[in-house]
Every structure is written in C-alpha cells, then in structure tokens.
C-alpha cells in the first residue's frame, strides 16, 4: 500500500486524531494525537493489509520554539514491504507519551533511550530508567537548553592547554620587543633626523640578539 492509501485508511478509522500526510520537503509523515498513539500502532500492527510488524526506530526531536518534543516512529512491514512515519507531539514542560512496548518489544530499549536523553516519560513502561548515561546523571543532554554540569564525580571537564598558552606568551614577548625597538627608533629619529635612516636599521637587528625571553611558566607539571 502506498503512504496515501495508508493515511486514508487511518483517517477513516480514527477520524481527526490522525492528521494528513505532511507536505514538507523530504520524507512525509503523519501526525497523531498523543492520546491515540497506542491504538493507532496496535491497529497498524494487527490489521490485515497493513501489518506493520517491524518497528524500525523511535526517536525524539526537541523543538523549544514550538514548545513540543516530537516523538517520531519509523514503522515498516516486512510482510508487505511498506513503511510509514508517525509523529506525536508531547508538551515540552512535562512530556509524557504512552508506551508502545505492548505492540513491539523493540520499543522497550528505544523508549528508554529517549527517556535518558530527552526526559520524555513513557507511561506504562516496564523499566523506565537511564540506559546510556550513568544512573546519577543530572539533566537530559539532547535537549536544546542542556547545560553541562562541569564534570562528573570530581573529574573536571576542562583540560589545560600548555602549547596554546606558550604561543600566547611568546607572542606577548615578541610584541614587547617590537614595541621597544619602535620606541628606540623613534627616539633616535627625534635626536638626529638625517642619519636616522641608517641608524634605525641596525636597531631592530640588535633587538633579537637580546637575551632570549625567559621560558614562560605553563601549567604542565613535570
């Protein structure tokens, strides 16, 4: 069945709980109301002719501008070789979606990952806990407003960069020498305007012969 036919059949069954096929650029999807998602999924799996037995992916997208977290279901049917994309919009303040674990077992771990990274609460899930991050992690990293906590259990998340500091310090010393040379040249020019052209030439040449700049201290420990 094509995507249009599937969408029509869903519309006939569920009325306005199921939106129309999207017209955006790229792949097309169907938006479903949050309350009806389990029924729609169960219908798609069991109805002869649809038989969406394969849950390819469940993922989420955070839209702070629209104040929703979209949960996206990529469904496929191995028997009929057709696919469909469903989208559900969960309120961003307290995102909660019913679990489709009863329809496809693949959803168990996929929903756990969305809970871990986005904070979406899947009501009815058998084992909703963090899966990728440590159990005592604070925050939901894939949200757009996530701020890092500055480390974990005392391990910092910055790193000293001695080469960058060395380069900066060397630049400063070089600038200081150039400034001295320019000041000396200006003084010589003020004293004797005519031979200034000759005298100022060796001055910059003598400056780099000055004792090499002391090695600046870095944060590197021996």
């Amino acid at each position, binding site marked *: 069945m094509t995507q249009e036919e599937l969408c029509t059949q869903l519309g006939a069954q569920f009325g306005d709980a199921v939106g129309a096929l999207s017209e*955006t*650029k*790229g*792949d097309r*999807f169907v938006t479903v109301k949050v309350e009806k998602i389990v029924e729609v999924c169960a219908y798609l799996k069991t109805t002869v002719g649809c038989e969406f*037995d*394969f*849950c*390819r*992916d469940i*993922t989420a*997208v*955070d839209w702070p501008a629209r104040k929703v977290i979209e949960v*996206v279901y*990529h469904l496929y049917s*191995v028997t009929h*070789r057709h696919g469909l*994309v469903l989208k559900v919009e969960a309120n961003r303040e307290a995102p909660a979606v019913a679990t489709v674990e009863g329809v*496809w*077992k*693949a959803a*168990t*771990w*996929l929903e756990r*990952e969305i809970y871990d*990274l986005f904070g979406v609460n899947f009501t009815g899930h058998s084992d909703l*806990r*963090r*899966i*990728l*991050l*440590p*159990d005592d992690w604070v925050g939901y*990293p*894939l949200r757009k407003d996530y701020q890092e906590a500055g480390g974990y259990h005392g391990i910092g998340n910055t790193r000293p960069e001695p080469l960058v500091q060395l380069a900066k310090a060397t630049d400063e010393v070089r600038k200081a020498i150039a400034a001295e040379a320019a000041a000396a040249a200006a003084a010589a020019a003020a004293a004797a305007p005519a031979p200034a052209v000759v005298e100022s030439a060796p001055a910059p040449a003598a400056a780099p012969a000055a004792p090499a700049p002391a090695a600046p201290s870095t944060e590197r420990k021996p």
Partner: protein
Amino acid sequence: MSTDTTPDTTIDMNLDRHILRRTDGNDEEIVVNFGPQHPSTHGVINFVTQTNGEVIRRSVPEIGYLHRGLEKIGELVAYPGYMPFTDRIDYLAAMFANEGYAVAVERLLGIEAPPRAQYIRAISCELCRIASHFISIGTMAQDIGAATPLTHALREREAINDLLEELCGARLTYNFHRIGGVAFDVPAGWTDKVLRFLDHLDSYIQEWDRLITFNKIFVKRLAGVGVISREKAIDYGLVGPNLRGSGVKFDIRRDMPYGAYSDFEFNIPVGAGKVGTVGDCWDRFFVRVQEVVESSKIIRQAIAKLPEGDIQAKVARKVKPEAGEAVGQVESARGEMLYYIVSDGSEKAYRLRVRTGSFMAMGIIEELSHGIMVADLIAIIASLDVVAPEVDR
C-alpha cells in the same frame, strides 16, 4: 542444583557500590558483573548476571560505557565535517556508516552521487563487509575457545586493510565517502590487487569452512543455542545477519535499493537450520560466512562494470539543505543502519539520529538468557555481533 529458571523480581542496579553480592537466603545464587572490561563482551558492555552456579537465571545488559554523545555532536558540527564521526559509530564497518550518512544528506539535498562514485562506494563497502565479518567470525571462534581462527581472520583482515589504505589512506577509520560521492578515485592497479585478493579469499573460505565452520566441537557448541524465532526477531527489531539467521529474507540492498546494488546479481543467505534449529547461533554464524562469499561476487561484478565519470557530484562548500527531514539507510555488516536527519535550513543538522543494528540486538539478550549456561551466554553475544560503539554511540 535446581533448574528453576523463573527470574527473580528485582536486581539491585546500584553497581557503583557492588561488585559481587549474595541474594537473600539461597547461598548458591550470586549476582556478578560480566564486564565492562572483559575479553568476550565485544567492547565495553556490562552484563549483570544472576547465576545459580553455572546456570543463569537472568542476565541484564548494562550499556553506556562508550556513550560519546555522537548525536549531540551532529548538532554542533557542520554537515561535511561530521563524516569522521560516522567512522567512530561503527569502526569495524566504517564505510557503511560513511555511506549511510552521505545517503541521508544527499536525500535532504535532493542529489545523487554519480555512477562511478556509487560503484566505488559499493566496492569499498563490500570490502569493509568482508573485513567486519572476519572480525566477527574470528572473535566468535575465540569466544568458543579456539584461539587460532582469530589470528587467521586478522591476517586476512590485514590484507583488506592494506587495500583500503591504498584507496583512502587509513586502516580503520576511513572518512572516505563524501556528501555527493567519494573522496578519492581508484588508484592505478588497485582493482587488479583487489581481484588477486578475492582469488585468494575464495580458496581461503573453503579452508575456513574445514577449520571451523563445520568443526564438530564448534557445531555442538552452537547448534540449538540461543534460538530466536522469526516472529521474535521481527518483534524485537533485529536487522542484518541476526534477522536473516532466523529465516527472514530482508536485506536493504534488495528491499530498499540504494546506490549501485540493483546492477549486481547476488544471493541473500538466510538461516535454514542446517545443523540445529532455524535461528540458532550457528545459523547466524553461517549467514556471515556465506555473506563473505556473496560480497566477493559483488566486488567482482562491480570491478568488471566500473563506469567512467566523476567521483563527486557538485555540492556547495557550505552544505545548507532546505528545512525538512530525510532518512537514509544502508545494509551495514551488522544490519540496517538508519540515519534520520532533521534540517532547519542552517549548515548544521538540527537533529541527527543513528539507529544501529547492535542496539536492537542488545535488547533481546535478557529474553534469551533465562536458564542457559554462562558459556552459552558468551556464544549468544558473539553470534549477535554486537559492538559497543554501535550500541552506545
């Protein structure tokens, strides 16, 4: 020792404080951490195993030890710059990860790679599939207890590493495909080297079959172990050789064709229960061995029909697709690798999602672990061919 296999009600998951703990009452039952540092777990994965002597009551995988936030990095890095990160999603089959990402972005942009690039992609990907399968079947043999087949497999893989190094400069993390094509053209004389390697490979696979595939001990260890039925495999979302080992003939190269695969003739090996039950560990192993042979066929056809032309389509320096979303999928060595990219019109992705085959395979291990022996658990994990970076990303 009782053979009661009903799982216990709860397992204490506060592992930072427990390494080993005894459950109340029954002296023989212990909860042991099988991992994360373990030679047989194919990466840093922990299996919290509740065992009654040698028989497992329940084994719960605990993942996330290699979670590097690759999906978040996709939102921080521009589209062309994300290619090296895809290598690290599955470093054993890095070409597929590259190609999947390139296909997804190309779908967003509405372009297609030129034919020569598609053929070069197919050749590099199939070589990578052979390399990945060699590691898989070699480490599986090692987990069963045979140490030598791994050295054989690594030796063959070194030959492929040399070929791919000549092609793109790297042995493991290739960064070879680009949005719109491939980075470098095939060097002079390279295709002859590949054909010589394939001649050697075709005769070597027969040696491999004699050495390990039909080895009596190997067959006895794996036949009938970890049987996954067809319905269960589809319900748990398994893909790739795991799904095909259970008898489901589903391959992205055939069913959602991409690239140049419609020009090639090859079989899709499917598990048939040759030495045990359909969907046991040996079936999944044998599917991989047969896929090596099929990949060899594909490479030969691709080299014979390699067309002339550009290796990269015209793509702007700053890749800025229109707002929208696209899905790109490839048949990786570990199954379908699905890239779902949402674009908001800027030069960085708004959301980049990677769904890998190993993540789905981990979900079924707890289900299979009731009442099996510890050695069988190792065989099951090896036969599902999980790699930690695909699981954790």
